[in-house]
């Protein structure tokens, strides 16, 4: 890593330049670079988390929305098996429904097992039965019509999972908003740190600034001399933070794959998405690096210009 860092430019090379007017060592570079690296890492990981939650929420919502469930409670005088068949027929006749299937008694018992425990004989008591209805097109499916038709079956009700989806979307939205807020706070903290570092650098280079003023340098020229230096620091810090974030995602992805059994890993994948950094993830991290480097350059330039306008 050290050799890679050392290969990064200390300043942005511009055409027609002689020796640097602002000496490299006079800028509090290493500390600022480390700080920018940390901020970039935090931004990239937060952005990754936000994208992961949002993608998972969209996927969950789409999965859940593609299915509705008919529940038939036991009612005295009604024959459950007959009601199940009627419910399946009504569902299959509804526009937008791909298939309908009554869950067997064993499947229903399996569903209750987490609450009632294994090994119980449920044949003596009547339990509610379910019909899983898969929709071919969740938008065009005529759910109100199915709801009306099911009124003919005593004890039948339709669950579209709307409340669950609503709660899921609210939770995902809250996490995404919190993540964006964290990103905004990181940006503000970065800007403040750059302002302090730039002011310190300007104060310690006051002699150079004065000499440049005396020989007729404009504020724009002086600001440009400092800006190139800060842009390079921003880029170096950004690249280090970005590479660290990529390594973090690779490490977490590998750890999840090796620590969790394959079947459980698949379930984790369904619920939380995959900890895999795709091309879009790498592009996202590259954008974070560019934004942070740009933020460093713009903030330092504005701080330098303000400093110069106050002192000249």
């Amino acid at each position, binding site marked *: 890593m050290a050799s890679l860092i050392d290969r990064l430019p200390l300043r942005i090379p511009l055409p027609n330049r002689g020796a640097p*007017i602002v000496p490299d060592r006079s800028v509090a570079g290493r500390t600022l670079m480390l700080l920018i690296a940390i901020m970039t890492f935090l931004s990239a990981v937060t952005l990754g988390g936000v994208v992961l939650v949002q993608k998972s929420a969209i996927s969950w919502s789409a999965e859940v929305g593609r299915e509705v469930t008919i529940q038939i409670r036991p009612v005295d005088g009604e024959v459950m098996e007959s009601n199940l068949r009627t419910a399946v027929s009504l569902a299959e006749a509804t526009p937008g429904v791909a298939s309908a299937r009554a869950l067997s008694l064993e499947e229903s018992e399996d569903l209750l097992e987490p609450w009632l425990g294994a090994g119980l004989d449920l044949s003596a008591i009547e339990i509610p039965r379910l019909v899983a209805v898969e929709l071919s097109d969740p938008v065009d499916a005529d759910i109100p019509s199915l709801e009306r038709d099911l009124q003919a079956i005593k004890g039948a009700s339709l669950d579209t999972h709307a409340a669950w989806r609503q709660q899921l979307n609210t939770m995902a939205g809250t996490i995404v908003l919190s993540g964006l807020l964290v990103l905004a706070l990181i940006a503000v903290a970065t800007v403040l740190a750059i302002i302090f570092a730039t002011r310190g650098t300007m104060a310690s280079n006051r002699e150079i600034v004065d000499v*440049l003023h005396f020989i007729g340098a*404009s504020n724009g020229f002086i600001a440009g001399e400092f800006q190139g230096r800060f842009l390079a620091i921003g880029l170096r810090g950004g690249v280090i933070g970005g590479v660290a974030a990529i390594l973090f995602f690779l490490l977490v992805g590998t750890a999840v794959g090796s620590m969790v059994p394959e079947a459980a890993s698949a379930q984790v994948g369904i619920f939380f998405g995959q900890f895999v950094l795709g091309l879009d993830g790498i592009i996202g991290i590259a954008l974070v690096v560019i934004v942070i480097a740009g933020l460093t350059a713009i903030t330092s330039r504005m701080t330098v210009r303000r400093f110069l306008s106050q002192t000249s």
Partner: protein
Amino acid sequence: MIEFSDVGLRYGNGPEILRDLTFKIEPGTFYFLTGPSGAGKTSLLRLLLLSLKPTRGRVTMFGEDVSHLTQDRLLQMRRHIGIVFQEFRLLDHLTTYENVALPLRVLGQAESEYRGNVTELLDWVGLGERMDALPSLLSGGEKQRAAIARAVIARPKVLLADEPTGNVDPDLSSRLVHLFAELNRTLGMTIILATHELPLLDRFSYPRMVLNKGELEIHG
């Protein structure tokens, strides 16, 4: 070229450092500015350098009233004024050559354009062999000659020098003033050289601006 009319200067609410200065300096002239320490020599030079504005009166430079100048115009005017300091004020991390070339870099010239001029000037001030040396390796006299070269490389119309001989021995002081005289004679540069070394002044016949307790008299 430079005209002061009833100029006064004070810092904040303090007493007037300079009072009722009225004088005119024609192009191509050479003046010594002298007076005891604390008489206001540096303040007057800062007014001439346009880094201060008078609190009263009128300063006209190159035909323009400086109190009404925009920031851009002020910058353009400042480029017609060179300055040499007692403490040299060379940038320690740049070589002699790079220090002298700095004003031309600031003007946006490429090195290929200015290299010949800088080398020639360094030869002229006797630093041709020292152009790659850092200021820390130069003697006091060499540093001051480098500072003078930096001040004149962009051919200013006016050259100000604030106690340029303050950090060198008497023999070298005299040689430095001869260098200023040569610049005045060969390039027609207007020179105002501030010094409190009276023996040095006596060796030259240039007119003297004498500041005492903020008031100015011109002799010669």
